[in-house]
């Protein structure tokens, strides 16, 4: 009797859930804290449930392409938008900029190795972590910055490891596995107890990154997907991102790097592959 009752109960709850709208977001890990809160706030406001699948921007793009599902794609950097376009995975016209990210030098709390500038990264014996440039946007930006400032060869010697995702790059510091990483300015907001940031000089930054959101071509509920993007760029959404340390206006981002480009793609230079080959 009890078993039958339980079965009926689960069937019923299944039915009820089926009537609630849900959307699936394939999300780069760079925006996790803000996206989590935005998803909850959005559900409270509209009743539409948002499921966020996190991972490296490339990894979740693979998942989206292979499963041919998903309503939104929110990578951690603009570099993945052209990739997603080439694979017909997103609707280019729907791309909106959600927040800006500034590349910085992230150090352990209290800056025990006293790193004050980019060239300090060439100090012998320093252990540096970066995102894996093939897989993580953050890693790509790290190589671009070093290359742009002609420090790739010297600093390259100190790169101890490459992390497989954006948040793992931050975790490297939280676990004190490395002395410093080239990370996003929000790392400090993610783990204020363990991570401090040292800003680069404006002329050292060739590109600012931003978090774009696009509607996937596989969406089955375009309406709800559009509503969520609109929510993310609305005051309520932007306030959430600000709270987590993300920069929400281009003018504010420009303060850190007035002459930097935004968006576009960067190709790893041959010198990087030589570096690997050693």
């Amino acid at each position, binding site marked *: 009797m009890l078993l039958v009752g339980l079965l009926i109960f689960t069937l019923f709850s299944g039915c009820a859930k089926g009537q609630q709208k849900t959307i699936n977001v394939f999300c780069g890990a760079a925006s996790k804290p803000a996206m989590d809160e935005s998803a909850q706030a959005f559900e409270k406001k509209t009743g539409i449930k948002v499921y966020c699948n996190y*991972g*490296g*921007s*490339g*990894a979740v*793009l*693979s998942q989206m*392409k*292979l499963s041919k599902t998903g309503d939104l794609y929110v990578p951690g950097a603009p570099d*993945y938008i052209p*990739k*997603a376009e080439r*694979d017909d995975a997103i609707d280019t016209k729907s791309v909106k900029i959600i927040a800006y990210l500034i590349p910085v030098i992230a150090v352990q709390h209290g800056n025990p190795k006293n790193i004050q500038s980019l060239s300090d990264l060439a100090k012998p014996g320093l252990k540096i972590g970066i995102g*894996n*440039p*093939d*897989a*993580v946007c953050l890693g790509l930006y790290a190589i671009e910055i070093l290359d742009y400032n002609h420090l790739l060869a010297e600093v390259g010697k100190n790169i*101890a*490891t*490459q*992390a*497989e*995702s954006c948040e793992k790059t931050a975790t490297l510091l939280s*676990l*004190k*596995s490395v002395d410093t990483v080239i990370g996003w300015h929000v790392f400090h907001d993610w783990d204020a107890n363990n991570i401090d940031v040292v800003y680069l000089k404006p002329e050292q930054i060739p590109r600012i990154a931003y978090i774009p959101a696009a509607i996937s071509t596989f969406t089955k509920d375009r309406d709800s997907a559009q509503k969520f993007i609109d929510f993310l760029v609305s005051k309520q959404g932007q306030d959430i991102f600000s709270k987590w340390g993300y920069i929400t206006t281009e003018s504010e981002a420009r303060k850190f790097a007035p002459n930097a480009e935004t968006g576009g793609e960067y190709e790893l230079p041959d010198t990087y592959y030589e570096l*690997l*080959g050693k």
Partner: protein
Amino acid sequence: MFKGVTISALALLILFFVGILVSMVSYTDWNTFISALLSREILFAIRLSLTTATVATILSMLIAIPVAYAISQTEFPGKNIVDSLLDLPIVISPVALGAALLVFFNTPVGAGIDAHIIKFVFAVPGIVLAQITVISALAVRLLKSTFDSIDPRYEQVGRTLGCSKPEAFLRITLPLAKDGLIASGILTWARATGEFGATITLAGATTMKTETLPIAIFLSLASADIEKTIAVIFVLIIIAVVALIIMRKIIGRRYVI
């Protein structure tokens, strides 16, 4: 009737795996596969996977044989608890084991070892250590079954005929266990080659440095390059099949009576 059912079960299982393989073929092409196989990155990954797995397996088996023998043949207080505890590493996800190792190397003792004796964190020895941590419990479990199946009377008779305990073990028990040893060794090697979670956590995913084949697959997927991912999967399958066939031939030949 029974034979039909068992053969059907076998056929279904094989069909399942073949089905998965065939569905992957449509996602890649011959050119991508060849260029992946011959690329510096993947050749490096193949060499790294083969050497680390072999070293890890040899070391694990050296540890596991005496441990399995102790659990199988010796009585000691708390044996049941120890037996259960040795199953834990198999249950706990490799990622958890890798994270635990990483935390250990953060402690004063661990950091000292890492700095002054051997560098494990984000280095190749870390790959071997991660693999050993994951496969040792499996090796012990497999070898225990092997030793359990050997009647202790053989050893006892040997003792009465003048063998010391180590002699009896080496000259009687081990040769009797050879089939189990070979099978356990091969399975342990296979598990080590496929090890990913603990490896990537402890040794990192550094291209051309700590990039084993499973990590290469993960990095390709993480770069949204599906064709390369599938190509590297096939590389791993072929390397594994070739290695397993060779192992069975070599080891099998040496022990043929």
